[in-house]
C-alpha cells in the first residue's frame, strides 16, 4: 500500500483507508500551520498531533527506528546551526569551541549559544512535524492513489507521474548502488578515507556512473513501455478505483478547511494589529491570546 514500496505497512489502518485527497489536504494544512504557528506550545501540539496520526499506521519497530533517526538528524542539524549562528539577545555561551579573536576588522570564533540551541529545538518542531506528516501520507498511500489525488488537485500529470515513478524505482536504484559497491570490493577496491582521501573521493564519484547509466537505460525502457501503453501526460485519465470520499472523509476535510481559514484569519488580524497598531479595544484579549498561544 505504501508509496515507499520497500517499507511494509499495514493497509487496514484508518489512515490508509482515508481518501488520498484528504491526506494531501491534511499535508497542506500541516505545512500552513507549521509556518504560521510561533508559540512553543502550539508547535509542540502540532508535532504531537502529527505523531498521533503517524502512530495510527501501526508501523513496525524497525520502521519507527528509521523515522526516529531521520527526525533526530533534522533536529540535530537545526539545533546545531541555530546554536552556532544565533544572533538574538540575551545570549549566553554554552560551549566555546574556538575562542573569539580579531582578524583585521573581523571578530571570529565558534561558540555554541544556549538560547540558540533552545530556539533551534523549537524551530526543528516545524520541520519534523511536516516531515513526519509527509512520511505518514506516503506510507499510508499507494503511488497510484497518490498520483490520482495529485491529478485531482490539478497538479500536472507529467509532474505527478514523475514523482510517483521516482518512488517506484528508488528501491531498485538503492539495490543497484549496493551491487556496484560489492562488485568494486570484489575487484580489490577499499575506500581509504584517511590515507588517500582524493583517490577515494574520485572512486566514489566513479562508482556512481554505472548507477546513473542504468537509471538512464531504465528511463528509456520505461518511456517505451509507457508509450506503448498509451500514456500521454497531456490527456485526461480515468482513476481506478474511482476516487470516493466517505462521509467521515468529508467531515475531516471541512474541519481541516475551517481550521486553516480560522488560523490564517486570526494570525492575519494579529499581524495587522502588531504592524499598524490598529484594532478594536474589545479585541485586545483575543490578540493577547493569539500572541501567547499561537
Amino acid at each position, binding site marked *: 500500500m505504501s508509496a515507499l*514500496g520497500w517499507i511494509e505497512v499495514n493497509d487496514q489502518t484508518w489512515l490508509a483507508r482515508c481518501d488520498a485527497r484528504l491526506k494531501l489536504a491534511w499535508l497542506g494544512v500541516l505545512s500552513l500551520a507549521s509556518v504560521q504557528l510561533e508559540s512553543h506550545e502550539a508547535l509542540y501540539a502540532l508535532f504531537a498531533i502529527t505523531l498521533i496520526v503517524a502512530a495510527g499506521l501501526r508501523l513496525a519497530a524497525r520502521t519507527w527506528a528509521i523515522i526516529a533517526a531521520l527526525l533526530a538528524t533534522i533536529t540535530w542539524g537545526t539545533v546545531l546551526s541555530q546554536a552556532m549562528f544565533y544572533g538574538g539577545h540575551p545570549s549566553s555561551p554554552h560551549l566555546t569551541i574556538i575562542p573569539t579573536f580579531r582578524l583585521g576588522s573581523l571578530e571570529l570564533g565558534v561558540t555554541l549559544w544556549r538560547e540558540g540551541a533552545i530556539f533551534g529545538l523549537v524551530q526543528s518542531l516545524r520541520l519534523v512535524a511536516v516531515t513526519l506528516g509527509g512520511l505518514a501520507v506516503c506510507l499510508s498511500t499507494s*503511488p497510484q492513489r497518490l498520483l490520482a489525488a495529485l491529478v485531482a488537485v490539478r497538479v500536472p500529470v507529467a509532474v505527478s507521474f514523475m514523482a510517483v515513478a521516482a518512488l517506484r524505482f528508488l528501491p531498485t536504484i538503492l539495490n543497484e548502488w549496493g551491487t556496484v559497491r560489492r562488485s568494486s570490493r570484489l575487484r580489490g577496491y577499499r575506500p581509504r578515507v584517511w590515507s588517500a582521501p582524493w583517490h577515494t573521493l574520485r572512486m566514489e564519484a566513479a562508482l556512481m556512473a*554505472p548507477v546513473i547509466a542504468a537509471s538512464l537505460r*531504465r528511463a528509456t525502457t*520505461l518511456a517505451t513501455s509507457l*508509450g506503448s501503453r498509451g500514456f500521454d501526460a497531456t490527456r485526461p485519465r480515468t482513476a481506478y478505483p474511482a476516487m470516493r470520499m466517505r462521509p467521515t472523509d468529508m467531515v475531516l476535510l471541512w474541519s481541516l478547511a475551517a481550521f486553516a481559514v480560522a488560523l490564517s484569519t486570526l494570525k492575519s488580524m494579529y499581524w495587522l494589529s502588531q504592524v499598524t497598531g490598529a484594532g478594536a479595544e474589545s479585541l485586545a484579549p483575543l490578540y493577547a491570546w493569539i500572541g501567547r498561544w499561537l
Partner: protein
Amino acid sequence: MSGASSENLKVSVERVGYTFFGSERPSLADISFTLTQGSLTVLAGPTGSGKSTLLRILAGLIPNSAAGQMQGRVRLFDLDTEDAASLDLATRAGLVLQSPDDQICTTHVESEVAFGLENLCLPTPEIERRIGHWLARFNLAAQRHQRTHTLSGGQKQRLTLASILAMGPRLLLLDEPLAQLDAAGAMQLLDELEQLRAAGLTVLIAEHRLDDLLPRADRLLLLDAGRLVADCPACGVDASAALGALGLELVSPALPVSIEPQDPLDSPAPPAWIARVRGLECRWPRAARPLWSDIHLDFQAGECVALVGPNGSGKTTFLSTIAGLTEPFAGSMEISEPPAGSTAIGLAPQNPDLTLFCRTVHDELAFGPRQLGVDRDEVHRRVIQAADALGIADLLAQAPLALSQGQRLRVAVAAAITLRPRLLLLDEPTTGQDPRQVSRLLTAVRRLIADGVVGAVLFSTHDARLVVRFATRVLALVDGALLANCSPAAFLTDPQSLQKAGLSATSIARKQGAVEDLSLARPRS
C-alpha cells in the same frame, strides 16, 4: 472479402528503414513483409541486427516518439502508424519488452493492469471487468492485491503480458520474452501465446532461444545487420539453412575437447582443489524456510561447472554467497590461497553494467590488478591477454558504458579475468546474447582455464545447450537443495532431473550423439 477489408486483417511493412539520430549508418534498411491475422512469427538475428528497433517501429513508437529518420510505411491493420495517435496505436499493437522489472510502472498487480486501461479512459466497471478477466487468464488472480516486486520472474512476465493484452491489441510484439525464463516458464508462456494466436491475435516474437519456439511458429523472419535476409516457413530446410548461415543453428555440435589445465607461470603449483563448501545455507530474514541449505561441494582446478535450476531457486544468491558478497546463514566455505597478484574469486554478474565504472575499457581491465598492487608491465600484459581472448582488443580506448550489450558483458568478464581468479563466477552469461556470442565467450573462458589463467569456472544458466557444450560438471539447485552434482551426460539423460531443474529436453539433449560426446569433456580428477 473485399480488398479493403482483407487489408484490415494484416500488418504490412513496406520498404522500412531507420537511421538513429546522430548516426550516419541506417540501423534498418529496406525491410518489407506482411503478417496475417492469427499468425505467430519469429524474428531472429544476431545481437544488434535491429530486432528491437523493428519491434518499436511496428508498435508505432518510431517515428512518433523518436528523433531518428524513418523511411517506408507501416500499416497496422486499418491504421497507418505515421499519422496515428498514441491511444489508437496502443489498441492495435502491444509491446512487451525484455525486462519486466523495468517496464512495470506501478507497485501493485491490480494497478499495473489498470494503468493502460486508465490511459484509454475506460469507465471503471469495464476496467474492473478486464482486470478480473486477464489476471484469471494468466493465473494471477490470487496475486491481485500483491506488490509487484514480490512476484517471481515468471509472474512478472505474465503480469506484463496481462497488462498489455487487457488493452485489447490485435498485434502482440514480444522482445526476447524467454530470455529470463526457465524451460517450464518458457513452455507455459509459449502455450499461452499459442492459445492467443488461436483466438485471432497476431504475434511477433524477437528471440534468441529458438529451439522450443520455432516448432510452434508459422514463419521466420531473419535479420542481419539491419536487413531482412530470410522470410520463410519457421520449420524447414530454408529456415535451418538461413539460421546456419548466421551461426544461429538450432542444434549446435558438442565440443569434443578435454581440458588440460596448466599451472600458472611464476607461481607455485596450485592445489587440486579451489574451493570447499560445507553445509552452506541461505535464509532470508523472517523467511519460514531457507532459500537453500545443506550444500556440500568441492571445486577442482580445471573445471567448468554449470549451475542450473528453475527461476527463483537461488542461483544468483548462491553465486553471491560463494563470492562472499552475501553472508550465509550457516555453513562454511574454504578457498585455496591465491598466488600473489591474483584473487580467489572473480564475478561477472547478470547485469554487467553494474561492474563498469572506469573511463575506458583499458582502465576497466587494469583496475583490479592495480588494486592488487601488480606492477605496470604485468598489468599491461594481463589487459592485452584478456582483451585478445575475449575479442575486445580494438575497444580498449572506448568508454565501457557506450558499448553494445554483448561487448559490455565481455568487458565485465575480461575485467574479472585480469584478476587471475582461482574461481570465476558467471551469472547467466546468455542473457541478451545471441548463441554465437555466448559460444565465443565460453570458448574463450575455457581456453583461459586450459592456459591456467583462470582456475575454474562456475556459470549459471537455463540453457541446456551450454551445459552440453561447455560444462564438465552440473550442479542443479532445486527446491532449496542440491538435486544433482554430476557429469553433464548423467544429468542430461535423466528427464526428471532436467524437468525439475527447469531445463527442457531440447533437441540438444535429445540428440543422443551430442550427449555421448560429453564423455570427452570430463573434469580432471
